[in-house]
């Protein structure tokens, strides 16, 4: 039986590259677009800076989902950082799958500095989907 807890508010951690996605999120803010407060952004210089250990750390600290945001392919401020992210992402995806972490809980998204709207869409979508999945509870499991 699936128990859907409607009061459950998932905690999402987002790693946003400083040049595109962080500015996109900034734009969402300055344009006063409303979106769920569930995602907490962490700024990195480039999506290529996201070490797999950051993602693991986030889950182990109690995140229900992790999102990596980067510039669109070809637009990375450091030329090719996001290509490295793509490769690292698919590797991690497999690994997390082995741990039983659902697809929806780990996403890589391209958001440009102009796409404030898209940023909020992604956050909305991720929040909704993870709400349906329910809490991950890794922190509790690890503490036991």
């Amino acid at each position, binding site marked *: 039986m699936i128990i859907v807890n409607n009061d459950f508010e998932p905690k999402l951690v987002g790693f946003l590259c400083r040049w595109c996605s962080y500015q996109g999120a900034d734009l969402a803010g300055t344009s006063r677009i409303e979106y769920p407060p569930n995602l907490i952004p962490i700024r990195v210089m480039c999506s*290529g800076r996201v*070490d797999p250990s950051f993602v693991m750390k986030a889950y182990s*600290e109690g995140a229900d989902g992790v999102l990596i945001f980067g510039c669109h392919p070809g637009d990375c401020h*450091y030329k090719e950082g996001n290509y490295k992210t793509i490769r690292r992402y698919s590797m991690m995806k497999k690994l997390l799958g082995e741990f039983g972490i659902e697809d929806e809980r780990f996403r890589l998204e391209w958001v440009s*500095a*102009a796409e404030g*709207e898209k940023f909020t869409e992604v956050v909305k979508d991720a929040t909704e989907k993870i709400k349906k999945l329910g809490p991950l509870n890794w922190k509790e499991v690890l503490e036991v």
Partner: protein
Amino acid sequence: MVSIVLDGKKIDVEEGTTILKVARDMGIDIPTLCYHEMIKPYNACRLCIVEVTSNGRTTITASCSTEVEDGMVVKTDSLSVINVRKMVAELLLARAPSVEKIREIAAKLGIEESRFVEEKEQRCILCGLCVRACEEIVGVNAISFVNRGPEREVSTPFKVESDVCIGCGACEYFCPTEAIKIEDIKGRKVLHDYLYLGPTKAIRVPFLQAIPNVPVIDVNYCIHFKTDNCKLCEKLCESDAINHDMKDEYEEVDVGAAILTTGYELFDSLKIPEYGYGKYPNVINGLQFEHLCHASGPTGGKILLENGSEPQQVAIIHCVGSRDKNYKSYCSRVCCMYAMKFAHLVHEKTNAHIYEFYIDIRSFGKGYEEFYNRMLSEGVTFIRGKVAEVNDGALTPEEEGKLIVRCEDTLVGIVRRIPVDMVVLCPAVISRNDSEEVAKLFGLTLSADGFFREQHPKLGPISTDSDGIFIAGACQGPKDIPDSVAQGAGAAGGVLSLGDYYSVEPIYSVIDDKLCAGCKICISVCPYDAITFNEEENVSEIQEMLCKGCGACVAACPGGVARQNGFQDEQIFAEIEGVLI
């Protein structure tokens, strides 16, 4: 040098000169029809005849082709010359009585009516200038003489449409009697496609006050680039400034900074077919109106309709494609003010009544609101409402032949039909279609509306995310001239203040040489070649000057030895812990 006697005067002239040239240089008037200085003489019209005595023999001969000889005695107005010339003129007049130029020449010789009658009146006098121009100058031989005797005429082979004709119009240009007319059939244009308000030449100064103010050759229209011939301009240019072999050249220049000022494009009004742009000739856009008003424009600055008459009513439509969810949702900023300037120009130059159709008037700048008030007092009718349609369907006799502007007047709450003669559209200012490519090239990003994005809307309005790349003008967003100038000056100042030193961001990466195992993975991921390998110590080293601080090496380092200032693993871990409490 040879010496001749011309009309009783002894003169020395250059060998090889024709009598006609010598006489004209001396100010003697000899009529000609089939002669043009750029084309070989052909002796067809015989109007230029003179009396020449040389080696004791006197003859009447055509001066346009006869070269001077030593001891020649030439008379240009002896009785027999005049008599023969009169006869020639009379015969020409009989053939082509309606040609103004022939009437003039005949009148000068005292002939008003010809004694001869030709059955069929013509304009062509078979002088062959067109045929020779097509052969010698254009070099395509599209036309020539056909048939013989009374049947002789100028035509294309077998009188069918010529497929070698390039439509240059040289035949029309050289024809002395206006017997040839160039028409635009099958889209073989003699006009400029983008300056369709009037024909221009293939060599011209691009516009008044062009910088540099020199003529350019339009290779798409120049005859030389089509047939390898002509080069008339080169022959005529006294200072030898024309060189048809010039090619576009690409030069590589090393610079330390760049300012992008690539400007904007105009929204294509064809995308809003309701406004009749491209369908009704008197619906024009703002740039075309500017061209029309310009003192060096096709009408010399007069505001005229397509049929050459002055408009009685002019409608100016704001926000064509801008502030419109279907096209561009932003405001183009400059249109309100230039639309009012247009109104002022129309008011100044014509007696037309002017209607401005606006959504909101945005007279935001210094002195702008005052100008708006002035327009109100000049009698311009401002109608608040977005125009629904421009058509030509008249319902009443007053609307006959007019363009009808249909619009809801939101201040009165009624739908209006306003008949006008001319409609000026103010299309949205949009980003250039290659802005994405240019942005990629310089490592910039675009805003949602497609314009280059500045580093910060308030704190970095001229700099960009790429060091040393500045932006100014409408490539950053719709902007009027004062704002563009200010931004341009700011960008220049930004470049000048860069100085001869290089500042690095504090966020760069470092490698702890005590812990580095020398695996070189970091070297393979660095996009800037900022990491070198120290063979002696067997460690990788980062050059702070080259490092841009992306952190790729830090994420890739298997030993956690590479660290990024400001973004150390521990710092990010702490952040994660912090946000997930």
